[in-house]
């Protein structure tokens, strides 16, 4: 279970978000580019710090403005699929996937790590690509490596930033199914950001970004499940 409500001041408006996502749910954040969707993911992952609010995952407090808690990203156990996948370009696909097991607070035995790697390589059908560098992979292959890399660390939540944007239409339909399949297998909350209308159907819950020009900065945070944007001042 992921629970979050927080506020973050951006140059053009103040972002207010409040939502919860259960293990068996995919939350889709939809809205035009520049509406602060990625900022929400970054606040969840600990890459940015909100000014107010609280973020909890699996009962663990990740951020709390009142209690002055702000766990760094490496302590949050939140998987993040970046828009451009951000694979380590100096490492092979295999080394990319193993990175989280090597550097996280992970004391697994070598055999265990290997078994996990093999399982994920097989699941994502990338066993034959394990020695390739990201520059040698196609868009779809890169995405599968990125998914395997994030999931191997057994995150409590998985965040996906425009996971299908870099792919062509045919692949997009296929990968949409794949994401659903993976979610069913992993049973952790997924938060997916998109600006495509057609991807909304992926979500069990959908939050649409909305510009609320009439509302002043100091107006009460809306408690409905939606993000609203208010102009500063």
């Amino acid at each position: 279970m992921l629970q979050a409500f927080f506020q973050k001041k951006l140059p053009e408006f103040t972002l207010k978000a409040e939502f919860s996502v259960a293990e068996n749910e995919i939350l889709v954040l939809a809205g035009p580019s520049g509406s602060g969707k990625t900022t929400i993911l970054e606040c969840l992952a600990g890459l940015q710090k909100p000014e107010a609010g609280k973020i909890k995952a699996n009962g663990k407090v990740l951020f709390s403005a009142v209690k002055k808690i702000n766990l760094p990203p490496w302590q949050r156990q939140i998987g993040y699929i970046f828009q451009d996948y951000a694979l380590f370009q100096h490492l092979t696909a295999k080394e990319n996937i193993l990175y989280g097991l090597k550097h996280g607070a992970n004391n697994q035995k070598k055999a265990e790590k290997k078994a996990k790697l093999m399982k994920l390589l097989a699941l994502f059908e990338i066993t034959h690509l394990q020695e390739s560098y990201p520059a040698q992979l196609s868009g779809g292959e890169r995405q599968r490596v990125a998914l395997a890399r994030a999931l191997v660390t057994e995150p409590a939540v998985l965040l996906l930033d425009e996971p299908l944007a870099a792919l062509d239409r045919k692949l997009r339909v296929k990968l949409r199914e794949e994401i659903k399949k993976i979610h069913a297998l992993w049973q952790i909350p997924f938060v997916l950001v998109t600006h495509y209308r057609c991807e909304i159907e992926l979500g069990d819950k959908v939050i649409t970004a909305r510009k609320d020009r009439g509302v002043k900065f100091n107006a009460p945070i809306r408690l409905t499940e939606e993000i609203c944007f208010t102009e500063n001042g």
Partner: protein
Amino acid sequence: MKDMALKPSACKGVKFNTLTRPELHEMENDFLAPLFLSLRVAVLATALAFIFGIVLAWLFSRKSFWGKEIIETIFTIPLVLPPTVIGFGLLLIIGKHGPLGKLSEIFFQRQIIFTWGAAVIAAAVVAFPLVYQNAKAALESVDANQERAARTLGAKETEVFFTVTFPLAWPGLAAGLILAFARALGEFGATLMVAGNIPGKTQTIPMAIYFAVEAGDHKTALFLTLIVFIFSFSLILGLNQWSKRKVKYFTAKGRN
């Protein structure tokens, strides 16, 4: 008196045919001493410049604060100042009456200037901007998302630096390293002013060549020049090959 005249030091270089084995060995050492000293000075100075240059470039590329521009200008200025100006500036700091020179006298009872340590300092100061400039450009060009991905995968800041930032910035860092080493090896003006030209103690290759030419000893000058040339040539060739192999993945062609 007779004993004195027979001492090797008195007849060195005069009667070659009477020199014994250990003395010959000493002669060779004298001849190669500038080379080894130069290498020692250049390696140490490059290492100092490399470590300080990278650490400062890393800090400066992610933090901004008041006066940053001014400090960065000071970092870069040895690149454009005449070496004699740097030498004089260093004399003011590490010289007998300079603050660091005085501290050294108090704590170690010895002076810094006219030692090979002073040559290392001079070479490091002139080499530093080359490391700093290249390192800053290289670190800034590293894809921030890859660093952030490492963080979300459980890596702490230092781990992120050594496993992602450093390898990705390596081509630029290597370029700075080569330039800095070349500059340190060739340093003349500032070194002459702070370390002097004491054979076997502070006489580096550039000094040895200059003073050999001045004394009309073209044979020694040519020999040393050839050594430097061959050494520099193979070093740069080797480093280029090595880093080319290391950066292959950056240029690997995508299949799509």
